[in-house]
């Protein structure tokens, strides 16, 4: 499942939490400007695999990782590679939105200031562009000084997406980004995913199989730390080749 033209890929990736192996030799390629969905039962390794893509697991005590994780062909775990630089290029959106307790404007400007951009006019351009890309601008353009915590759950999640987009990542990782949202907010996030893939490579973990089917180009099914099946979403959801995939997506698991 490796591919020379992959945007991001893992090769024989193994991950252990202490002595427990959470990922077993996972080789998987994500193509540029595609949405790849990861599905599987809880504890199957999909979120663990996702977090390997921007070096988030290495911060957990007792974790050991071996195998390759390549972004544009370069191993992001290489000794000369800075994890912070990796995370600038690979943004992440979590299940629970996590806006800073600051204004809407500052939520996005904060990261820019850390990068040395301080002119208000420059910051405003980036804030507006990011909010527009996250389909939030029209709803907040008149209240940019308002606390981000006053936004609805769906708006907060889109603000977090805008914040991630501000640094112009080439890959966006989403770990159940809509699982806590109502259907309307979920629909907005899904529309956003479909728009963002024009400029970004997206990997999304979801327990909502209809969501995976709606938004993704390719789907990977994980089970007990192994990649069981990976392929075009329309094929995987209509004619999977592996029995375990069939059993999982038809609800006959276990």
């Amino acid at each position: 499942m490796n591919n020379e033209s992959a945007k991001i890929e893992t090769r024989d990736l193994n991950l252990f939490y202490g002595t427990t192996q959470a990922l077993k030799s996972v080789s998987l390629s994500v193509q540029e400007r595609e949405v790849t969905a990861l599905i599987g039962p809880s504890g199957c390794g999909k979120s663990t695999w996702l977090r390997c893509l921007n070096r988030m697991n290495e911060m957990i005590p007792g974790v050991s990782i071996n195998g390759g994780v390549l972004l544009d062909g370069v191993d992001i775990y290489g000794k000369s590679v800075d994890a912070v630089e990796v995370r600038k290029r690979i943004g992440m959106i979590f299940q629970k939105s996590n806006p800073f307790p600051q204004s809407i404007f500052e939520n996005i400007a904060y990261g820019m200031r850390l990068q040395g951009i301080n002119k208000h006019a420059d910051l405003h351009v980036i804030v507006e562009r990011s909010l527009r890309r996250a389909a939030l601008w029209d709803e907040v353009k008149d209240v940019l000084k308002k606390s981000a915590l006053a936004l609805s759950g769906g708006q907060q999640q889109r603000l977090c997406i805008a914040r991630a987009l501000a640094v112009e990542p080439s890959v966006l990782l989403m770990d159940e980004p809509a699982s806590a949202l109502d259907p309307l907010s979920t629909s907005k996030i899904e529309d956003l995913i479909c728009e963002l893939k024009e400029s970004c490579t997206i990997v999304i973990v979801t327990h909502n199989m209809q969501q995976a089917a709606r938004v993704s180009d390719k789907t990977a099914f994980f089970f007990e730390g192994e990649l069981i099946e990976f392929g075009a979403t329309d094929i995987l959801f209509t004619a999977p080749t592996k029995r375990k995939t069939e059993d999982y997506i038809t609800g006959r698991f276990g």
Partner: protein
Amino acid sequence: MESYLETRYETIKSSVHGMADKVVEAVLAAEKSFETRDVVAAQGVVDSDVVINETERRLDKELFAFEALTAPHASDLRFIVASVRIVKDLERIGDHAVNIAEMAIRANEIDSDKKSITPLTAQIAKAATSMFTQAVAAFHNNDYDAAMAVLVLDSHVDALCIQIEKEIIAKVSGAPEAAEALLITLLAGREWERIADLATNIAEEIVFILKSWDIKHNHYENPEEFA
């Protein structure tokens, strides 16, 4: 223990299979009534069609609701999509059985000594009935090989239908007084040919359910190419 979803799926599956069995009964009765001019059996086919029609309406609703409420995937999805089409084909086969039964009733009035029946008429009835019952058996047993076996029989029924047409045209010119009875025989041949076509459709749907291959329109020789 079966899950709620599995129970619901099995219930709807059983209903579709049950409809297929009802239509098999109608087709077998239609074949017998035409061959033997059994008016009582023929009327039974006509009367039972209302049950088949109502079953179609009920299953339309149930399949639609199952799709909307459970969002099936993989083989479940293929079964539901194929069943929507199979149910429609079964209802049409039921209608053809009624047409044949009505022809049997009329033929009994004008040709009670069965002069218009020829060996070819019996052959096409038997061949089409056999195709349909084999298709339904393949559906019940999830039998890919049996479904594929149905498909190759269709050209034989088509050929019989053409032979019957030629035979009837030749007979009518020599016995114009028997024209109506002969015409009924010709039309019955066409009804059987349509039943065979619809049995072929059902066999193709079984292949779709089991393999996810779309082999419609005579693509059964190399089915893997249509995966």
